[in-house]
């Protein structure tokens, strides 16, 4: 009872945070609070408890030991054999590094889902990336709920690809600068000459905004994970294309055969390290845990690309095309099978109302 009377007699008990700071940084606590605590049994009890918890935590987190900095530096230099006294990163180099990142794929997916306006045959080409393509199976619901990055900043499509038909392969080549793939032998049932579609570059810019991210998190009813230093205001620029698609015998919206080729997307950031940005994106509210976990596994060597495939509608498997790792995608109803691979920064895909053997056969026979 005396304690209660005492507390009620005080005008102001400092909060737990102040008591905690008294434990190890008392100089940061206002004199008035210090004076109060010194004469308040309730606050002194709280202070003692805070002190005990802090000490227990310090013990629990203790990980003393010596560090050999010379050895660590040698290991670091060996693992990162770049000229460690080199000048600041050139944009092109940074771009090269970042184009291997799942982050770019995440942005690329948003660009595709956001309706960049590419034709059906070109839609999925835009989420491909360099070096290697690996599938991430996701449920359709996950695709729909992939975090719309416009909630976390400003997403601006700077230029749309302007997909349009051209007369022939020569015109496609001239417009895109790509070697238009020629099919050596058409599979049984596919006849005639293809129609050619070309698309120019799609360019999107995304600027991370802490304020927007906080709003989005509040709307999702979840706390926004603490944002790494420097991410707020960071800009990511994605450039994909140009691309070309040759289409045979389209009917009912499903082409008999499509052969597509596109320049793999490139991107660069304004400076936040990829790992930091990726981990933060992965921690944002709204990204399904399973998908996030799968995306995270791509961080190992940074050379694979998550290729979201709706698990309800399609399956995927690995194969090889001309020695390049390739991914086979097949719809569960058997209506469409495709194979995609990357070589020298160019993505090529073959798909159609065909069997796996047929699409891989066409892929192997491309000239």
């Amino acid at each position, binding site marked *: 009872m005396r304690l209660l009377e005492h507390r009620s007699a005080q005008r102001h008990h400092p909060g737990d945070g102040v008591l905690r700071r008294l434990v190890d940084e008392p100089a940061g606590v206002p004199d008035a609070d210090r004076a109060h605590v010194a004469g308040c049994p309730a606050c002194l009890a709280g202070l003692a408890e805070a002190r005990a918890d802090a000490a227990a935590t310090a013990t629990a987190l203790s990980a003393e030991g010596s560090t050999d900095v010379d050895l660590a530096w040698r290991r670091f230099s060996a693992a990162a054999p770049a000229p460690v006294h080199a000048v600041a990163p050139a944009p092109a180099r940074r771009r090269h590094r970042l184009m291997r990142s799942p982050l770019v794929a995440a942005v690329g997916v948003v660009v595709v889902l956001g309706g960049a306006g590419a034709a059906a045959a070109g839609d999925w080409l835009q989420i491909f990336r360099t070096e290697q393509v690996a599938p991430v199976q996701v449920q359709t619901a996950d695709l729909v709920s992939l975090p719309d990055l416009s909630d976390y900043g400003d997403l601006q499509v700077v230029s749309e690809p302007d997909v349009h038909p051209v007369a022939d392969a020569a015109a496609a080549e001239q417009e895109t600068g790509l070697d238009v793939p020629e099919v050596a032998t058409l599979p049984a049932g596919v006849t005639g000459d293809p129609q050619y579609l070309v698309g120019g570059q799609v360019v999107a810019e995304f600027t991370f905004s802490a304020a927007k991210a906080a709003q989005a998190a509040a709307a999702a009813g979840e*706390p926004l994970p603490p944002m790494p230093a420097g991410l707020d205001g960071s800009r990511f620029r994605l450039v994909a294309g140009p691309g070309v698609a040759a289409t045979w015998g389209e009917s009912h919206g499903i082409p008999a055969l499509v052969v597509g080729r596109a320049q793999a997307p490139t991107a660069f950031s304004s400076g936040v390290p990829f790992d930091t940005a990726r981990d933060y994106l992965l921690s944002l509210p709204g990204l399904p845990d399973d998908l996030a976990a799968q995306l995270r596994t791509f961080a190992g060597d940074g050379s694979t690309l998550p290729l979201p495939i709706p698990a309800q509608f399609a399956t995927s498997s690995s194969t090889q095309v001309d020695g390049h790792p390739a991914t086979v995608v097949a719809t569960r109803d058997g209506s469409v099978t495709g194979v995609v691979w990357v070589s020298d920064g160019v993505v090529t895909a073959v798909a159609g109302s065909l069997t796996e053997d047929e699409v891989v056969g066409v892929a192997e026979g491309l000239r």
Partner: protein
Amino acid sequence: MTRSRDAVRPDLEQVFRADYPRVVAVAARVLGSRDEAEDVAQEVFIGFGRTSVPADEASRWLSVAAAHTALNHLRSGRRRAAREQAAPTDHVTPDVADDVVTRDERSRVRAALARLPRTQAVALVLRHSGLSYADVAAALDLSPGSVGTTVRRAEAALRKELIRHASA
């Protein structure tokens, strides 16, 4: 590896030598293992090498990155599992931390840390790594007044976890 073609900031070695022990210490508080912490520190400095973070903010940046990266490792558990498989001799050469906290307790502490809200976990680790309240506030975009509250909550949660398991 493209890394060999990546250019890095010119002051990297200087910053590395000055801050490496601190970065390892931060990560070790999270992971409870200096070996793992050194792996995290290498990762953090690779990232740092590509940034243009001003030199006078490097220490804070590195500490925050170390805490986040180590917590990510903790959450994924990948590194730990891989290391335990690859290096069974770990058990006969325990970390010095084992002198203070038993292996069992240590894993409970890591599990409890992994369950804390990220802000609490980072604030806790940074404060116990010696960052001032003002530095922790700046690093986490908190008001300086709320750092104490955040750290206090984390410590209370940690204590509850440890007591709960100890009495179980």
